[in-house]
């Protein structure tokens, strides 16, 4: 047992720690010293190292130590999935130009790191400190079509004038503007970058000073359309009307926009859930789209300043919902219950009958009593009014109606005697909201 312990100690002692630099998938052995990439003052460069045992045995998390100005560990070391190696990084971030070195200890084994900070022309925002490479330059929020201008400064710490290449990329960005080269020795040169987004959203680009790149970003937006409101003409409505609807803005809009207006009919009549006549007349639809041009203070519907909708022939309410990307507004128009409405009445005399034809609507769907009074040519009533209960006939008609409550009623009256003596007719119609008396109508 004692020999076995000595053998295990010997194997462990022979598993020597070896250090590599990893670049992509390439591992390069590191000897006693290693030079990290040359880095500009203010920038930083990370170098990835890998630890393996010389005999290929599994490793543990290495014990690391680093001493030296400008060098640091940016993160903890980590084992790979099968513990065959452990990786760690060393960051070189020189603050000033010059030569740097540090002692890196891995499991007690030392390696000297060398670094060189070459003096470069630096980029700084106007009035600010030089920016590390890769620093994102944010132009903030800029309205589409407008512009934002940012000033920058190139500082040349070198003892000779520097000709640098400055390029600006990205559709929203233009520059450099006003840059004069070379940048004098120990001096500065200023320039500007113009941001003028033509689309909305997060737009990106970059400004590059020689090989050092700095991302540019801007959030381009469209300003909101001024608050829209619905205008109906006439402002109050009844059944069987055509109402003009327009969309007005609180002020002239700086941007183009659009929205929709939706009609919803809420019936007040039991058993009549809807009225098909309630819709925009020109389109036959219950939704209409409107557009707003930049500079306009009102919307247009298919190029027209307003759109017309019908109120139908059913008591209830019409709810108008205006919707834009950031606004929803509603308005309601009450359609009150009315006595029967008569649109036309005509009477004709035949040999043995008088026919009375009436068109109209009953927005309560409750037509009940009808009464007819016939007159002679001198205006005297020929007989007492003829009354009829029309409730069942109208209920039957309304049940199958696809035109709301509008109706054409043909009433025929058999005549005994000389029909030519019948010269005119008056009628009244009754529903749950009242009685409508129709003016006397001549019979030609």
């Amino acid at each position, binding site marked *: 047992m004692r020999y076995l312990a000595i053998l295990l100690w010997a194997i462990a002692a022979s598993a020597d720690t070896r250090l590599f630099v990893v670049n992509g998938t390439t591992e390069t052995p590191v000897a006693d010293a290693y030079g990290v990439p040359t880095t500009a003052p203010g920038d930083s460069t990370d170098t990835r190292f890998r630890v393996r045992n010389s005999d290929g045995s599994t490793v543990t998390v290495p014990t690391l130590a680093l001493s030296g100005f400008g060098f640091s560990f940016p993160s903890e070391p980590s084992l790979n999935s099968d513990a065959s190696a452990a990786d760690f990084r060393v960051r070189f971030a020189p603050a000033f130009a010059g030569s740097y070195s540090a002692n890196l200890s891995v499991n007690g084994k030392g390696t000297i790191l060398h670094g060189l900070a070459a003096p470069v022309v630096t980029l700084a925002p106007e009035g600010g400190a030089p920016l590390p490479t890769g620093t994102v330059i944010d132009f903030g929020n800029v309205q589409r079509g407008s512009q934002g201008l940012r000033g920058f400064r190139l500082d040349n710490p070198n003892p000779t004038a520097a000709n640098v290449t400055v390029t600006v990329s990205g559709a929203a960005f233009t520059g450099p503007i006003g840059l004069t080269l070379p940048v004098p020795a120990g001096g500065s040169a200023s320039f500007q970058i113009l941001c003028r987004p033509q689309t909305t959203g997060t737009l990106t680009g970059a400004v590059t000073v020689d090989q050092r790149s700095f991302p540019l970003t801007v959030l381009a937006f469209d300003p909101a359309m001024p608050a829209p409101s619905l205008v109906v003409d006439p402002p109050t409505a009844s059944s069987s009307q055509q109402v003009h609807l327009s969309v007005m803005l609180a002020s002239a809009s700086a941007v183009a926009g659009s929205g929709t207006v939706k009609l919803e009919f809420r019936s007040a009549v039991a058993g009549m859930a809807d009225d098909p006549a309630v819709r925009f007349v020109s*389109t036959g639809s219950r939704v209409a789209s409107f557009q707003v041009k930049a500079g306009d203070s009102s919307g247009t519907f298919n190029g027209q300043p307003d759109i017309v909708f019908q109120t139908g022939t059913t008591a209830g309410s019409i709810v108008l919902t205006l919707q834009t990307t950031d606004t929803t507004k509603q308005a309601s128009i009450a359609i009150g219950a009315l006595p029967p409405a008569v649109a036309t009445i005509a009477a004709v005399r035949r040999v043995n009958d008088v026919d009375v034809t009436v068109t109209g609507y009953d927005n309560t769907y409750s037509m009940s009593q009808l009464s007819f009074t016939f007159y002679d040519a001198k205006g005297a009533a*020929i007989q007492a009014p003829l009354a009829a209960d029309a409730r069942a006939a109208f209920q039957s008609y309304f049940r199958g109606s696809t035109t709301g409550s509008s109706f054409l009623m043909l009433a025929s009256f058999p005549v*005994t*005697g000389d029909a030519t003596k019948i010269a005119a007719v008056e009628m009244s119609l009754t529903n749950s909201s009242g009685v409508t008396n129709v003016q006397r109508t001549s019979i030609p």
Partner: protein
Amino acid sequence: MKAALVWGVTLSTLAFGEIRPPRVGLAVDAQANWRVIYGVAGNFVCGEAVRPGIAQAGFAGSLGYVVDQGAVVLLDGSGNEATRWTVQSANPRVALSSDGRAAIWDDLQLVLRQDGAWQPMAFDAAALGGDLIGLAVTADGVRFAVQRGDSRWIVATSGDVARIADGQGPVFLLDDGTAVAAVDSVSNDGGLVIRRADGKEERIATATAIASMAALGRGWLQLRDATGVSLGLAVETGRIYYLPDSCIVVQEGEEQE
């Protein structure tokens, strides 16, 4: 419920003939369908399409016509063909009367249909003294709307002549002697002049100029304005309404957007 005999005549309790949806007439919609329009003034509901692909049509209450494939086709109120007359021009002028007569002005020829037969009429087109822009069959014959220079005139077969309006634009003559002319003198935008049979005139402003007129139904004209909007003119009241133009016949309870 017979009432007492007072004047030698008695009316009995009414016998309902029928109750049905009121029909305003037939109109050509934006999709060129000749379509029934139901409802009452200010509340129109699309009905069935009677004929598709129609550019010119009219309906006079019981008789209608369409211009279809080189013929003027007369139809009854249900859209059934009654008769047809082959025409030479693409845009013949057609007039209907409420008593079932019809007139066609085609390629400078006048044809009348009355008593169930077509009758070409000897008529000297040069006597009109201008271009025919409208036609009516009236109780006393045929009347013409004529563009003479920069004014429009009504010319009767009897020889009577009356100026209806200045300028250019459509004129519609009704069989009762009423004339409707589109004018630009009522407002800056447009307007109509309605001249009744008794000579009285009404002037009605419109939002845009009226570009065409057609018979929609008894007492109704279909107008199209310069922007293509379909309007209905109730001739008796002189009121103008918007007509349904993109008809989607909606089933009861259906939410249509």
